[in-house]
């Protein structure tokens, strides 16, 4: 009997131990075991509200409408079972946190907020931002066309493709132009030469446009202008070959008051079309390309100078450029200033092997505007490595970057910006450094 009583006592002790252990071992609720990470959620909500500076605007605002909107957006951003309280503290010069305002979706009652995040917001007054002025002429914003034709090959753009350069120049100049259009096919270039808009964008303007040729010394030619094409007479002549095409381009540049940008090398040296000229190569094994030679630039200048008809002279095929070899050309003071102003920083000394002579520039009634590099003399002439050559009639211009490959597209962009000089509007600092601390507290409501 005693053993049984002892056993019962042991059992009582064991169950008492179990009860005591059960009392102290409290397992958490499933929600606590696998919780939603409210802290991360709160942080992402605040961060995304601040992406466009919205949170900073509201936090420093006294407008009750702005605070109501913040409350609406917070309520909409968080799941319905989440209670929140957002409090804004001003940090005084003494380092004291003074509560300024708070919004919450909890009215009455008490909620134990389990998670909170802090987020520091700067006053919009101390935000440094810049806005670029859109390039315009005659009060109208200009359209930038970038030649990006899929059916053409580039030359003297070693290490790049025209398409890569097109993307780069697109990114670089997009703040300055209201409309930028990539000319993706030579058929679109044909339409452009006909003065047709390429998109339905009402802001596209063919007149006064800027055209950047990213194909280097080669220029895409639509198939209609090639031999056998419907416009052969405007693209090819027996004596001058495809120089005739550049005469047409020169005429169009003048007619539409375009600014034609040649990004590197000898301008208008080749024509390129991978379909129509598929059996031609440029003597270096690049097919889809036909060499025109120095006559191309002369033909263009004749067109720009409004010669009525194209006539080829054998002297047109004489090179007019000068190669300065290892003697580099250097930025003008204006170029250095504009380089800083626009935040475009190419090397300020470059090798120029295709600089254009002043004598020829003057002969075709062109004015030198905004030279990027200082002029350089050789024998009796003066040469310009990169500048805008505008016709004296005020209609049409050539921006010729006569540098050695490989191209630095930033020079072309800088030359263009130096010509138009768009303003950069900079917001000024109107207040000393002011910051406010935002605390967002969250709690999950409801049962398990």
């Amino acid at each position: 009997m005693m053993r049984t009583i002892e056993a019962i006592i042991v059992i009582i002790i064991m169950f008492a131990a179990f009860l005591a252990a059960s009392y102290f071992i409290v397992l958490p609720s499933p929600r606590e075991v696998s919780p939603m990470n409210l802290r991360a959620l709160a942080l992402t909500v605040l961060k995304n509200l601040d992406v466009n500076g919205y949170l900073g605007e509201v936090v420093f605002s006294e407008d009750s409408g702005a605070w109501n909107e913040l409350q609406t957006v917070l309520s909409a951003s968080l799941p319905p079972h989440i209670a929140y309280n957002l409090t804004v503290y001003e940090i005084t010069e003494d380092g004291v946190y003074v509560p300024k305002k708070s919004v919450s979706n909890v009215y009455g009652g008490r909620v134990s907020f389990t998670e909170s995040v802090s987020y520091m917001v700067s006053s919009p007054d101390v935000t440094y931002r810049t806005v670029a002025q859109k390039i315009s002429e005659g009060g109208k914003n200009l359209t930038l066309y970038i030649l990006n034709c899929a059916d053409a090959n580039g030359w003297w753009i070693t290490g790049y493709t025209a398409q890569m350069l097109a993307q780069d120049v697109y990114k670089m100049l997009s703040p300055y132009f209201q409309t930028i259009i990539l000319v993706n096919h030579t058929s679109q270039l044909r339409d452009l030469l006909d003065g047709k808009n390429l998109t339905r964008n009402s802001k596209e303007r063919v007149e006064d446009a800027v055209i950047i040729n990213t194909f280097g010394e080669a220029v895409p030619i639509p198939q209609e202008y090639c031999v056998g094409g419907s416009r052969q007479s405007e693209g090819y002549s027996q004596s001058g070959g495809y120089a005739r095409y550049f005469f047409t381009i020169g005429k169009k540049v003048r007619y539409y008051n375009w600014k034609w940008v040649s990004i590197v090398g000898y301008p208008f040296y080749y024509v390129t079309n991978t379909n129509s000229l598929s059996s031609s190569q440029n003597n270096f094994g690049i097919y889809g390309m036909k060499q025109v030679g120095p006559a191309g630039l002369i033909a263009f200048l004749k067109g720009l100078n409004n010669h009525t008809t194209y006539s080829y002279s054998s002297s047109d095929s004489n090179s007019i450029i000068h190669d300065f070899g290892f003697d580099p050309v250097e930025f003008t003071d204006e170029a250095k200033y504009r380089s800083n102003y626009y935040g475009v920083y190419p090397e300020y000394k470059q090798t120029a092997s295709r600089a254009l002579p002043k004598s020829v520039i003057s002969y075709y009634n062109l004015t030198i505007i905004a030279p990027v590099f200082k002029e350089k003399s050789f024998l009796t002439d003066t040469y310009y490595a990169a500048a805008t050559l505008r016709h004296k009639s005020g209609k049409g211009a050539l921006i010729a970057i006569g540098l050695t490959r490989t191209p630095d597209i930033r020079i072309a962009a800088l030359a263009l910006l130096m010509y138009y000089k768009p303003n950069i509007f900079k917001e000024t600092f109107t207040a000393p450094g002011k910051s406010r601390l935002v605390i967002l507290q969250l709690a999950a409501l409801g049962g398990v």
Partner: protein
Amino acid sequence: MVSATIDHLVATTVLIVAFTLSMGLFSQIMQNALLYQFHMHLATKCSDTLDNILLSFGKMPGIFGLGDYNLEPYTLDPTLVMKLLSASGPLVEYPPGSGIKYSNISFGAGDYFLVPVSQCVDYETAQELLGLKGLYGFRLSLTPLFRVSFTSIQEGKGGKSLSFTVVVEGSGSPVSNANVTCRLLCITSGGNYPIISIKSMSKITDSNGKAQFTFSDVDVSRNYVVVASADAAHFHGVGYIYKQALTGAGNVIPFIENMENGMIILAHSYDVKQFNKTSALFYNATYFTLDDDWNLMNVQLLGNYYGLLNYGSGTQGKTYNRTQIPAEYLGRPGILVVTCRTGNEYGVTVMPWQIQSLSFSVEFGGNPSGWEWVATDVRHVLIGGVPYTAKLAYWSLMGYQVARYGW
């Protein structure tokens, strides 16, 4: 002596029973505690994995992530989101028998987002790149934060007016004082090929998140599409409706053939949905790119953006055509609207370029149903300025265990 023996036997038996019972009770507590530990570990892994996906830059080789290194954290790259292989709809093969499969996000007969599987990131690859293969399963859901819906749609007599109410709601409440702009795309007859004209109107939502719109002096008798964008606190939400998607001969379904160059196949729906009728469809595709203020800007498509789709022998037309979004607009969100006509019936299909342009949602990953414990976590993200909720469901592929033990 006997009684003492019996006493011992009874005492020992009772003790053994009580001991076994108490051990069982203790082990249950310990088992639960371990299980809870596993679940907590799973929740932590879920949170970590979600951050990995949202913050990693997927454009770098060998990495699965949706982040954009040009932008703020938790701002996703829309082009990477486009490449997630959808888990919400069955794969579509087109052309039939070709073996070319398309990831499928569709919400109805007129809403499609079909991208080639070969250009998508699939679930298995994502698991491998995240180091989860064989250990954990997951499903990522990207759902727009603002829901823009339409109620009380009424068409005036003869289709000369259209009125409706736009409702803007967040995940927790209606969105009041949101600026809602509705673009009414009226589909009119332009000879063989239907054409689109646009009217626009803006209103502010009331305290219930509602705004009433009435377009008068319009012709919506044939068909229409309304795209409504709501703006609150620089956040955008988009909703849309159309009158009817289908004609008696089906409609035209757009397939994104190549995401890199924007090539789109416009296919007769007969091959895709096996409609009985193969009648000819005249179609006209219009593409709108969205600017920073969410305005629709009409962009000229390349290729055969209008034409005839036909099955009949000896007649003109093909079963599909190709059009292309110009390269300079591929980086921006846009909306493709394809109108079609057979006889006097007009159908329409819409397709977003970048999912946020029509607030499409995305489901990516495995199926969470049937697993012992599924942990979830959410983040707030932006896709092209549109707030989305990113939710990750996460489970262990090892049952109760969360790590494989081996000797």
